[in-house]
């Protein structure tokens, strides 16, 4: 039998990964120019704490959840980076990793879980299904992208993504948190028309509420 040579795998160049440091550079710049010494360093401390202690809600609906378990297991061990604990109660979680397809029946539940979480809360959409519906895009029962329901901070593509990809996405989230402002401003302003109600089972209207990704908006404002 002819033995094939090891196939050359085309992958993303390592330099391209580094391009994503722009968030960190922006954070530096912001903290240098935009804030007072005390407020600025307090913010920095808080952001350091928040970004290094992201407890995720265990919210696995399908395949990606198994890779998430692999992420927590010994080889990948996400506890190393401060994603130590996965909380099962949304009240105590900092981010919701949406692992797997969200169907029409699950969508209100996801929204409700998101509403039940305490601020600051972040959303990571993992896998093709959560980003766009993935292979089930044409189905009658699959939400084509969870960003239609809840605001998403980081998308991690893949079907399912490798644990390394999870890391990359979660570190992007950490970088993103580092440009937030806690003191002197609210991180996530919400549309006044659709106030957030956190009581169970309430939903102001049928429309998914419009959330502005404020970390970027704020940046733009600062730069002006």
């Amino acid at each position, binding site marked *: *039998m002819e033995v094939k040579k090891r196939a050359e795998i085309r992958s993303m160049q390592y330099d391209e990964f580094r391009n994503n440091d722009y968030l960190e550079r922006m954070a530096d710049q912001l903290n240098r120019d935009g804030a007072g010494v005390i407020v600025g360093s307090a913010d920095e401390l808080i952001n350091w704490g928040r970004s290094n202690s992201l407890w995720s809600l265990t919210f696995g609906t399908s395949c990606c*959840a198994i890779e998430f378990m692999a992420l927590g297991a*010994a080889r990948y061990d996400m506890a190393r980076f401060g994603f130590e604990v996965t909380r099962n109660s949304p009240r105590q979680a900092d981010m919701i990793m949406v692992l797997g397809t969200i169907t029409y029946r699950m969508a209100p539940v996801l929204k409700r879980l998101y509403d039940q979480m305490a601020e600051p809360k972040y959303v990571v959409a993992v896998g093709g299904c959560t980003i766009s519906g993935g292979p089930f895009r044409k189905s009658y029962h699959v939400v084509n992208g969870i960003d239609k329901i809840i605001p998403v901070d980081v998308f991690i593509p893949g079907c399912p993504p490798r644990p390394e990809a999870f890391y990359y996405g979660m570190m992007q989230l950490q970088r993103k948190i580092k440009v937030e402002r806690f003191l002197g401003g609210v991180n996530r302003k919400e549309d006044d028309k659709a106030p957030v109600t956190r009581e169970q089972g309430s939903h102001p209207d049928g429309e998914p509420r419009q959330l502005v990704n404020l970390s970027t908006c704020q940046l733009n404002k600062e730069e002006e």
Partner: protein
Amino acid sequence: MTMSADNIILIKPEELYDEASRLRYDAKEPMDYLRDIVGMDWGEEGLGALYYLESTSTGARRVLKVVAADRKNAFGCAEHSFLPSVCSLWKTARIKEREVFDFFGIRFTGNPDMRRLFLREDWKGYPLRKDYDMDSNPLNMDNETNADVTEEYTLRPDGTVEGRENVVFGKEDFVVNIGPQHPSTHGVLRMRTSIDGENIRRIDPILGYIHRGIEKMNESLTYPQTLALTDRLDYLSAHQNRHALCMCIEQAAGIGIPERAQYIRTIMDELQRIDSHLLFYSCLVMDMGGLTPFFYGFREREMILDIMEETTGGRLIQNYNVIGGVQADLHPDFRRKVKEFIKHLRSVIKDYHDIFTDNVIARRRLVGVGVLSREDAISLGATGGTGRASGWSNDVRKRHPYAMYGKVDFREITRTEGDSFARYMVRMDEIMESCHIIEQLIDNIPEGEFRVKTKAIIKLPEGNFSTSVESSRGEFGVMLESHGDKYPYRLHYRSTGLPLVDTMDTVCRGQKIADLIAIGGTLDFVIPDIDR
């Protein structure tokens, strides 16, 4: 196992119950195992269902075909079509008939529970009907309310149908909602559990939180395209599921596959089984509160994933089987690594048993808890390790050998206790048995092609085809009806998990909440496979 169309017995709706009960209690060959009920929409011919039966004593299989009513009449009179329920013959029919109702709107007279199964209770229309408007149900963000009553229809002697309501949960029930977001339901299963103190009175599983409509999607995909979705059903049996569908299409199209591919498929199936059972061990232990062994299971599982990844390119979802063979040849290191892995696994499996199996708390939590009798297991269609733990030898690899299973020597692990511990031990022993199968094959993989060339567009001849394989957690079946097109007319998968979830209520009654979690762990279901 393929069955061609001539095995199908066509019967009239009013004769269905008598015919079914004759087959069920046949003296020579009782068809005591209802594999599946597949709802069908034959267009002009009408709506109906196929009943796949099997005899556990002889292994013979039969298919009953029932056409409910002329489609026009069905919609003309009461907008509903009716079929007599067979849930008094097979317990599993109860949930399977709900599925058919959910997808096709056929109501079953005599089934005490005619609620929607996968779709929201306020869903309009029946999606698997051919005339279903795909845009008729936009995303509804209102929280769903669940009715505490179910509908039951009974057929009056004069031929009219009477409806009445059955109470699922009364006012006196303290109903706890376990799921859909819950750490131990292995996905998005939701169990409305009525409890009395810590004791469980009744469980009502609510499914469909990950129902992706795969069966409907299949109807607009070409045969090679349908393969991609099988991996995402039960992602821990990705190889086996795909194997089943490939086998079904190959046999229907008359494609013979090279022996090398058969060997590779068998080895991959068994690796997948070990992978799945290791994950089972990890999850069960974690469900019971012991966190450390979870990491042991995953440590060894990663090694399997490495082996698979080298050959297939995927860790969890490999997309490896294709029509006519497998996607790529084995990696040069495959043989060596598999052998090393099996050697390693044999040396560490003792640790698994030391830390968990022989632990006094684990024993007390598992032994004698959640007993499922053999009769119930068969009647509920609980295949796989669950059925084998109850003494029902249902291994498809033994009963209807496919691929290389007829030529290798292995033991079918069965136990008689039927409790959680038996279910656990069956799976642990199956890990070793899978190693044994792989060892027999790994050195004898024949040289040659790993796949035969097939056309990109495959047309199957008209007819019904079905295959089944032993997936990691039971019998996974593919039921295919072709009308000669390049698309399947209907492609149905026998979910391994649906009957298992259905057993929860039977098994858990009277047990404690903590047992519910442990029993759920030992039944070992994967929700995306149930919901499809």
